């Protein structure tokens, strides 16, 4: 649709016409702001905890465990040097006594959502799948944070 609009504007004499073909789906999934009746405040991105801990695959579990638990979390995301989510350490690993590497202990490829997902739909999904948290990443896989179900449900009250 937008290429036709761009073409029509050129026919009308506009000479600097750009076509953002990826459109608002791309914009929103990258966590950029939206206006309108369903603006950014109604989306997951506005309710994400961005202070969730992250670590690297080569980190030692013993080091990560202490840091994560001391910060009051029971989960930690494993990311590469660009912040892309590779895996996750859950409560069982973080409270256990395995002293290997993060890479050996992590769960691979956790399911993630985009910050543009509407909050009520995220809560529906968490209830259906009995999840207490949902990792939130940009469309390029970079970790933004985690949506906690209790935060999301409180926001919808």
């Amino acid at each position, binding site marked *: *649709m*937008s*290429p*036709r*609009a*761009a*073409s*029509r*504007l*050129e026919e*009308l*004499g*506009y*000479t*600097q*016409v*750009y*076509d*953002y*073909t*990826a*459109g*608002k*789906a*791309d*914009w*929103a999934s*990258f966590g*950029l*702001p*939206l*206006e*309108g*009746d*369903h*603006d950014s405040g109604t989306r997951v991105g506005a309710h994400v905890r961005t202070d969730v801990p992250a670590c690297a695959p080569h980190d030692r579990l013993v080091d990560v465990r202490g840091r994560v638990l001391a910060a009051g979390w029971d989960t930690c995301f494993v990311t590469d040097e660009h912040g892309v989510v590779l895996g996750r350490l859950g409560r069982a690993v973080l409270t256990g006594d395995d002293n290997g590497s993060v890479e050996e202990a992590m769960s691979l490829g956790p399911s993630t959502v985009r910050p543009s997902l509407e909050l009520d739909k995220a809560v529906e999904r968490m209830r259906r799948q009995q999840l207490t948290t949902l990792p939130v990443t940009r469309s390029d896989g970079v970790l933004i944070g985690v949506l906690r179900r209790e935060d999301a449900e409180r926001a919808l009250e």
Partner: protein
Amino acid sequence: MLMPVDREGVRSLLEQGAQLVEVLPADEYEYERLPGALNIPLKTLDAETAGPLDPGLPVIVYCYDQQ
């Protein structure tokens, strides 16, 4: 000549004063839109509805996605 632009290009052009135009129907524009975008649905796009656009500045058009 049509000039495709990506997300970073859009942000850069906006800093230079570009005008954003969503060409989807009004109800979709009201639902969600990029900040500051005008709405000129494709079906209504003509010289009159494009009138508010400054021809001296870049114009970026977009819809929902590549469909």
